[in-house]
């Protein structure tokens, strides 16, 4: 499949250059044609050629990525960058064959002005700043010392090899040229490192050291490159001692200047975003533009542009993220990631294409093999020596495995290629050889090392990153922990890392944040922000998993409230209720229930929600380039309310008039139609379990009373408590062990069930209705709500007959002889419910007549529905759950089909 698509792509590319020629010829022909009259359709290839080709490439690369990730095995072994380079090779080959001349080259200008900054911006803006600064020492050391070491050693040794005639005589280069080459080939490349390491997922310290080094060595590379170029220009013999010092000064200015420019732009950016409240839509633009301007400005003064951009990103991130809106945050994130991905794709494809272009490279095996060996050897030596030095000061040392990964992860990439392509052929005679060597080195490091680093990491058992998102507890303790360490340092009278970090945080709090953050944001404590974020993240997770935020919020309440001994529960519940804006959820309560039955349940849930909970589309003629729509939540609440009311009415009707729509599933599996009918009408009754009592007993008294809803405490008819479950074994010794289990250990089942709104197909409808109705009634709708409540009550009288079998069954459970009637009547679900009910006779007593049962009084049922609706939010779903799990009660239900809903 992949091969086929590649062929196809190749065919497309093969077309392009050819058609380019066609385009040019038609261009030429156009003037002559022009006199001939108006042409309806014109071939405008030359006009669209460049963007068209690039777009097609990107498309192909993206399709290739899709195909590549289809194969799980392949994508777990091969890094994406390898695939892209291969694709570039193929494309380049095709282009070369088709047009016989190189059309596309990685142009250094394009690379440095557009492609590199997009990747660096992404890296800088999303750099984990704390981790970065904690490891700043090692990073700087590897970036500066390591790069210098590599550059000098590689250059000098290559010169030595040249002197020893290992490198062919065609390579016309002196010491300066080799040093220059050593400088550009020795720098670890951020693009390659990022591409490979993102997939390897080593632990974060290791990653930040290698990645930080690859970013920060830019200053060294740039300066060395420039210094050597100028030395090559003036000639080695004319270089004076002073020039070396100038080089050193230049390094300081380039690196520090770049950093400074970046920080200034970062501050400007943070300051600007303070005032974008009215123009949210251009917030992302500001971020992207100013970060890019930081890069360009540094280039303008020939400072280190990468450093500038990195520090702009690191510096502004905290304030900008706090200032801009959530949507802008998402936009910035995705824009940056997309752009970076595009740039990376283009770079690797260009690399592949450039490699196929033989016209500007020349092969020298000696040079290439020496270079490969030297960069590997010196990288390893450099890492080992520096780590040894560092470990003398590090409290947590970098061990041998880390060093292996660091040496092996020193990938070279497109920066080196762009730099070598920038060389002047007239000054550096051996440019072609250098180009070829650079390409080979890049291919070797990206392809070979990139391919093997993953198995290596696995084999060495390098601790991998867990990608763990901290919980609220971890955040709290993290902060307490930081303060503890600071305090101990202060007490011990030491001015260590924590001391200074704390000093910086206080400075930041007092001045920087005040200046750079919006007032509203500044007032909020950081922990609160984190808390909000975690809650939001959890909420999103829940929704993604098919949950319902509202229901989750509501459902969580009883779980707390039902622990009456918890001293502070009341505040909590009230707090959640008052501020239950969907953010203050007790979501973790939902987590542990992701059992194996999840799939089918969520399927059922999806079916239900699909039909239930789709707000009508509103045609809103709203368009603005500058403003976002607001006030949606209000509309939603209305919508929800209306929906609920309608749903509720319909549900109730269907219950009363035995409309089977809700119970189709049950019916399908039932043999006797009367059973299903009875069951259908039973529904409201069955929607109660012992769980309800827990919820109602506590919850109603405490909190619900403040709601306008009339809470009917007297809905005894449906409030059953499985208090004396030990009675059950006596009564039903043989028939229903599983049902017993359900009833006998109610807490286990239900506490797990409660948070899952989709538990049970039949009940879910009801759950939605009741919960949201309680929660979401705006004050102005209160009256309407009350009215519909009363109308519901008038609707209430249910047909009495359907209850008979149930009641009889109940009697049977009690030990009362049920008679023949009960035979097929106690349908599985009903039975199970009864299990819960039977011990609880107090409330049902009036409803339990002897075998020929009188019509059930309608009122309790209606009450049951009414009362439960608003008050016992989470419970109904639980009952249906118990329906699902229990087997048919003994021989009474020979079909056995009833157990499945």
């Amino acid at each position, binding site marked *: 499949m992949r091969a086929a698509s590649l062929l196809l792509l190749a065919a497309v590319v093969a077309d392009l250059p050819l058609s380019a020629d066609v385009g040019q010829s038609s261009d030429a022909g156009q003037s002559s044609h022009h006199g001939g009259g108006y042409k309806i359709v014109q071939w405008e290839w030359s006009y669209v050629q460049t963007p068209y080709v690039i777009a097609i490439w990107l498309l192909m690369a993206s399709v290739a990525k899709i195909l590549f990730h289809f194969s799980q095995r392949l994508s777990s072994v091969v890094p994406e960058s390898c695939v892209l380079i291969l694709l570039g090779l193929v494309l380049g080959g095709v282009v070369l064959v088709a047009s016989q001349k190189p059309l596309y080259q990685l142009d250094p200008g394009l690379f440095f002005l557009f492609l590199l900054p997009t990747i660096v911006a992404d890296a800088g803006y999303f750099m984990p700043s704390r981790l970065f600064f904690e490891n700043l020492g090692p990073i700087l050391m590897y970036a500066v010392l390591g790069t210098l070491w590599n550059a000098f050693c590689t250059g000098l040794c290559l010169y030595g090899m040249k002197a020893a005639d290992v490198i062919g005589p065609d390579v016309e280069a002196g010491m300066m040229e080799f040093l220059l080459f050593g400088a550009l080939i020795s720098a670890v490349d951020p693009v390659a490192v990022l591409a490979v390491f993102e997939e390897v997922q080593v632990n974060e310290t290791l990653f930040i050291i290698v990645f930080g080094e690859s970013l920060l060595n830019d200053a060294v590379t740039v300066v060395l490159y420039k210094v050597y170029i100028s030395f090559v220009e003036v000639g080695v013999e004319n270089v004076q001692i002073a020039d070396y010092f100038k080089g050193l000064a230049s390094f300081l200015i380039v690196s520090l200047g770049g950093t400074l420019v970046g920080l200034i732009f970062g501050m400007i950016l943070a300051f600007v975003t303070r005032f974008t409240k009215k123009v949210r839509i251009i917030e992302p633009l500001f971020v992207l533009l100013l970060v890019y301007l930081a890069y360009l400005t540094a280039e303008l003064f020939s400072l280190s542009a990468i450093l500038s951009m990195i520090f702009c990103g690191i510096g502004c991130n905290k304030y900008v993220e706090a200032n801009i809106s959530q949507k802008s945050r998402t936009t910035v994130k995705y824009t940056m990631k997309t752009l970076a991905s595009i740039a990376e794709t283009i770079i690797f494809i260009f690399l592949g294409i450039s490699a196929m272009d033989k016209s500007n490279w020349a092969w020298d095996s000696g040079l290439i093999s020496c270079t490969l060996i030297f960069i590997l050897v010196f990288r390893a030596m450099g890492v080992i020596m520096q780590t040894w030095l560092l470990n003398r000061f590090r409290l*947590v*040392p970098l061990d041998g495995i880390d060093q292996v990964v660091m040496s092996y992860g020193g990938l070279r990439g497109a920066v080196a290629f762009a730099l070598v392509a920038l060389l002047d052929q007239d000054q550096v005679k051996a440019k072609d050889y250098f180009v070829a060597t650079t390409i080979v080195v890049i291919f070797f490091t990206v392809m070979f090392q990139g391919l093997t680093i993953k198995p290596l990491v696995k084999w060495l058992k390098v601790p991998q990153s*867990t990608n*763990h998102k901290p*919980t*609220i*507890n*971890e955040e*709290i*303790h993290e902060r*307490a*922990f930081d*303060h*503890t*360490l*600071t305090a*101990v*340092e*202060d*007490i*011990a*009278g*030491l*001015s*260590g890392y924590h001391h200074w970090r*704390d000093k910086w945080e*206080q400075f930041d*709090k007092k001045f920087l944040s005040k200046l750079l953050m919006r007032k509203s944001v500044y*007032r*909020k*404590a*950081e*922990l*609160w922000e984190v*808390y909000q974020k975690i*809650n939001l993240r959890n909420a999103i997770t829940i929704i993604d998993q098919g949950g319902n935020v509202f229901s989750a919020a509501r459902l969580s309440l*009883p*779980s*707390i409230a*039902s*622990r*009456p001994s*918890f001293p*502070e*529960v009341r505040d*909590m519940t009230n*707090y959640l209720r008052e501020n239950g804006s969907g953010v*203050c959820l*007790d979501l*973790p309560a939902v*987590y*542990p*229930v992701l059992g194996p039955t999840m799939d089918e349940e969520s399927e059922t849930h999806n079916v239900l929600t699909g039909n239930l909970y789709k707000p009508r589309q509103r045609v809103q003629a709203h368009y603005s380039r500058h403003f976002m729509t607001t006030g949606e939540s209000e509309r939603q609440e209305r919508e929800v309310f209306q929906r609920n009311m309608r749903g509720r009415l319909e549900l109730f009707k269907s219950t009363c008039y035995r409309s089977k729509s809700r119970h189709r599933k049950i019916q399908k599996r039932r043999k006797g139609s009367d059973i299903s009918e009875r069951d259908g009408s039973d529904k409201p009754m069955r929607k109660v379990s012992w*769980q309800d009592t*827990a*919820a109602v007993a506590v919850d109603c008294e405490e909190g619900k009373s403040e709601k306008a809803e009339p809470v009917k405490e007297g809905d005894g008819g449906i409030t059953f408590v499985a208090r004396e479950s030990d009675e059950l074994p006596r009564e039903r010794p043989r028939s229903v062990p599983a049902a017993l289990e359900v009833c006998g250990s109610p*807490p*286990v089942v*239900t*506490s797990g069930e409660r948070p899952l709104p989709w538990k049970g197909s039949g009940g879910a409808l009801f759950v939605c209705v009741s919960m949201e109705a309680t929660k979401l009634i705006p004050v102005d709708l209160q009256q309407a709500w009350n009215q519909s409540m009363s109308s519901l009550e008038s609707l209430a009288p249910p047909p009495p007959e359907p209850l008979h079998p149930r009641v009889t069954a109940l009697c049977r459970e009690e030990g009362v002889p049920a008679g023949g009637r009960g035979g097929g009547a106690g349908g599985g679900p009903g039975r199970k419910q009864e299990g819960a009910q039977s011990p609880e006779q107090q409330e049902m007593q009036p409803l339990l007549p002897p075998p020929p049962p009188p019509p059930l009084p309608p009122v309790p049922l209606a009450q049951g529905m009414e009362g439960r609706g608003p008050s016992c939010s989470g419970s109904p779903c639980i009952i249906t759950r118990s329906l699902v799990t229990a087997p048919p009660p003994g021989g009474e239900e020979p079909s056995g089909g009833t157990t499945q809903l």
Partner: protein
Amino acid sequence: MGALMSGHGKHEFQELSDKTGFSLPQIANLHQRFKQLSQNEDTLRREDFNKIADLACNPIRAQIIETFFDKRNYRQNTSGKMEEIGFEEFVTVMTHFKPPDLHMTDEKKEALRKEKLRFLFNMHDTDNSGTIDLEEYRHVVEELLSQGGMMEMETAKSIANSAMLDVATITMGQMAPDEFYAGITFEHFVQILKEFDVELRMHIRFSNMGPVANCCK
């Protein structure tokens, strides 16, 4: 300096060094600091700690200061509070913040981790009840938030509540409705912080230089 050392001769320092694992210069450093804090007395009191300028803006300073007076942290299986502490106690509490050994076996690492977590746990469990109950937890959150200044108690409460609930759900799994979560026990504390490499991070760099090089404010 000689005068300072006179109270504690080389011999005592050597003993302390053997006991705590600090090097002699480190002990000398700490001793100098101790004398500085106590104004040349032999014991330290809470007021002395409260005078440390850098500590003034630390939101949880009260709890940290308490740890120095808490017998549970003296590695002697005792509990209770001290009113004033001597140099030995001071150093013993400091040992909890020693950098880890480079080559530890896994069991040792685990033991060290438990020990450090126990220290943190004791810090939050102010009444030595064996659990961090909601009241104590809320107190921590309030203190952490107090830095912002503008936060009302409600916020702290809600954060602490939800964090507590989080602990309950993580550690207890499904709770029956009539159960209630009394507080974070040490086992639960270990459990919720299992992603937190406390053994690698809970340390500060004690100066190895002589006391003179390290003169402080």
